[in-house]
C-alpha cells in the first residue's frame, strides 16, 4: 500500500499541484491542503505551483499532485461526471501522481457513491470504496484517528461533517482507526482509505494543515524523501485539538432543527385583541 515501489517522477520544473474542481468541491476549506503542500515544498527550497482547475476546464493528467475537497451532493455528482471521459486522474496515478481526496472528493475517488436521489453514481475508481447514504443523520465533530501502523504517522486530528457511509472493498486498506468520532461509519471503526498513491479521508481542518506528517508523506510519494521543518506552531495546535477531543468535543449527531408551527386558522377563541 501507499507508495511502495512507486516511481518518483523525474522533473526539471516546479512541482504541480492541481486543485480539482474548486467550484464544486471547495466547501470546507479543503483548498488549504494545496496551500500546505505547496508551502512545505517552497520552505524546503523547491518550486511549487498550485493550479485550480474549474469544472468547465479539462483536468490535466500531467500534474504531480491532485487535491479533491468536500462539496454538496449535486456538485459532487457533477464533478465525477466531468472526469468520467478520459479518466485523467486514473492516468495520472498510473503515471506516478499522488491524489488526496477529502469528504465528497473521497466518495468521488471511489468505485461508486449514492447521488442525491440515493441511486449509485460511478466514481473515478481510484479507491476500492463505496459510499451509501447514511441514516439521514450527519456525523459532525472532532475526529481523532490512529493511522495504520505501516504509515509510521502520528495520530490524525480533523473535523468531520458528512452524511454518507463508506465501506472498503478488499483492495483498499483503511487509512486509520477512529478513536473519537465516526469516520467511515460502516461500523468497523475505520476512517479513510489508502490505495496506491491515493488517500481518501473524511477529515477537514484542512487535514494537511492539522497533520503535517501526513502532508510530508503525500509529498514524499511525489518528490522523494524530505528533510524536517519547524512545525512548533502546528504542534501547539495539534495538542490543543487532541486535548479538546478528549474533553468531549467529539462527534455528535446533528439534532433536528426546532420546528415552528404555522399560525393556526382563526377561530372564535383566537380573535381577541392582545
Amino acid at each position, binding site marked *: 500500500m501507499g507508495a511502495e515501489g512507486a516511481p518518483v517522477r523525474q522533473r526539471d520544473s516546479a512541482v504541480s499541484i492541481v486543485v480539482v474542481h474548486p467550484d464544486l468541491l471547495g466547501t470546507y476549506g479543503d483548498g488549504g491542503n494545496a496551500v500546505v503542500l505547496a508551502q512545505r515544498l517552497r520552505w524546503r527550497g523547491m518550486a511549487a505551483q498550485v493550479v485550480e482547475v474549474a469544472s468547465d476546464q479539462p483536468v490535466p493528467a500531467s500534474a504531480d499532485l491532485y487535491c479533491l475537497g468536500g462539496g454538496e451532493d449535486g456538485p459532487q455528482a457533477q464533478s465525477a461526471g466531468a472526469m468520467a471521459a478520459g479518466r485523467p486522474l486514473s492516468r495520472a496515478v498510473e503515471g506516478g501522481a499522488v491524489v488526496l481526496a477529502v469528504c465528497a472528493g473521497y466518495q468521488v475517488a471511489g468505485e461508486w457513491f449514492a447521488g442525491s436521489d440515493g441511486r449509485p453514481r460511478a466514481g473515478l475508481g481510484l479507491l476500492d470504496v463505496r459510499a451509501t447514504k447514511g441514516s439521514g443523520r450527519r456525523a459532525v465533530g472532532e475526529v481523532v484517528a490512529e493511522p495504520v501502523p505501516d504509515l509510521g504517522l502520528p495520530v490524525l486530528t480533523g473535523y468531520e461533517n458528512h452524511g454518507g457511509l463508506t465501506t472498503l472493498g478488499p483492495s483498499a486498506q483503511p487509512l486509520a482507526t477512529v478513536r473519537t468520532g465516526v469516520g467511515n461509519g460502516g461500523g468497523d471503526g475505520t476512517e479513510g482509505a489508502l490505495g496506491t498513491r491515493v488517500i481518501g479521508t473524511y477529515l477537514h481542518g484542512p487535514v494537511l494543515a492539522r497533520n503535517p506528517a501526513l502532508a510530508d508523506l503525500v509529498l514524499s510519494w511525489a518528490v522523494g524523501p524530505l528533510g524536517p521543518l519547524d512545525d512548533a506552531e502546528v504542534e501547539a495546535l495539534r495538542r490543543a485539538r487532541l486535548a479538546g477531543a478528549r474533553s468531549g468535543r467529539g462527534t455528535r449527531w446533528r439534532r433536528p432543527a426546532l420546528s415552528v408551527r*404555522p399560525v393556526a386558522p382563526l377561530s372564535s377563541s383566537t380573535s381577541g385583541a392582545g
Partner: protein
Amino acid sequence: MTVRTRVAARTGAAVGMLSRRLGAGGGTVIGGRVSLAIDRGALGRLALGRRLALVSGTNGKTTTTRLLTAAVASAGPVVTNIGGANLPSGLVAALSRDRSRSPAVLEVDEGYLGPVAGAVQPVVVTLLNLSRDQLDRISEVRMLGARWRAALAGLPGTHVVANADDPIVAWAAGAGGGIGGPVTWVAAGQPWRADSSGCPRCEGRIHFHCSAGTTEWACGCGLSRPPPDLWLDGDVLVGADGRRLPICLALPGRCNLANAAMATAAAAVMGISEKQALSAMASTAEIAGRYQVVRAGRGWTRLLLAKNPAGWVETFDLVAPAPAPVVVAINARVADGRDPSWLWDVPFERLAGRLVVASGERALDLAVRLAYAEVDHQVVPEVTAAVEAGLAGGPGASAPLDFIGNYTAFQDLRKALARHRRGAGDGS
C-alpha cells in the same frame, strides 16, 4: 390573542426580565423559549394583525434590519429584535415586548426563515445573500436556497426583495419561473462566488461575465440574473426608470451601501418612500457595536465583525492599510460554527506586510493559517491582551487599531471593554 398566548408572552417577558436582573444574560432568548414552551403557536399569534418585514441571509442581516427599522420608524412606532436574537425564541421575545399592533422588522436566522415566514405571514421578506457559514449547524447553502424557495412558494401574498446578483438567492426568490408574490430585484452585489457556481436549478454551471460595469450570470439551462429594479452606481441608488437617489451613510464600505439599497426596497413595500427611508438611515453609525471606535487601554480600537469567508473578504476592504497592525480573534463556539476550517477559504494573504495579532479561543488555528499565508503574527489568546499587543505594535495614536472578530470573539471583546470602563468609572 388567546389567553394561552397572552400568558405565554407575559410569562416569557417576566422570565426574561428576571434573567436580565440576575445578570444571567440579555434575557431575550430564555424569555422567548418560555413563551414557546407555553404556547407553540405563540409566534404566529403574536404576529397576527401586524405588518411584518423579515430580513434574512448569511451576511448583513443585523445591519439591514437596523436600517429598515430606522426607515419604518420614521413613520411611527416599530418593533424589532435588537441584539441578534434571530431564532424563533428571540422573535417571540421581541413581539412579546410590544403587544400593540405596531409594525415589526425582524432579523431571522437563515435556517429558520421558512417556518418563521409560514408562521407570521410577512408583508415583505428581504433576502440578502447566501454563502458558506457554520456548516456544522446550518445546511449547505444550496439546500437552504431550495428550502427558502419552497417556503416562499407557499406565501403568494408576501412581497420579496431579493439580491439579483446572488444566483442561489435569485433562485430562492423565484427567478426562472415565478413561484409566488411580487419580487423587487436589487443588484446588491455578491463578490463571493465560490458557493454559487453550481446552478441551483439544474446542477449545471453558472457563468459570470462582466459587461458595462455589472456582472451578469447565467446557466445553460436558462436560469439567469433577473433584470434589476434597483442598482448601485457608486453611492447612488438607481432605479430602472432612471431615478437617482444619493445614499449618505455613517456606516463604511460597499457592503453597507448594498444593505441600505436592500432596506430601501423593503421600506418601499412597507409604505415608506425611498427618499424618506434613505434619510432615516443616514445617522445609523454602529450596529450592536460593529464599526464602533472605543477606548481600549492606552489607545482606541475599531470593532469589526466578520463571521464567514464572504464577510471577511468585505471586511478586509475596510481595514487600515499596512503596516498598521490588526487584531484577528477567532472562536469556534456553537454560535460561530464549531469547525474553523473556513479560515482556509479566507484570503489572509491580503494582511501581509503588517503584524497580525492572532487571538480568541482558536488563535492557534489562525496562527497556522497565517504561517502558511506568510503573514507576520503573534499569538495572544485573550482578546483585551491582544488589543494591548496590537496597540504596542502600532505606529501610535494617529488612527484606531482595527480589531476583527468572529461572532463570539467580537462579543467577548465588547464585554471585556465594557467591564474595564465600568471598573474605571467605579475607581474615579
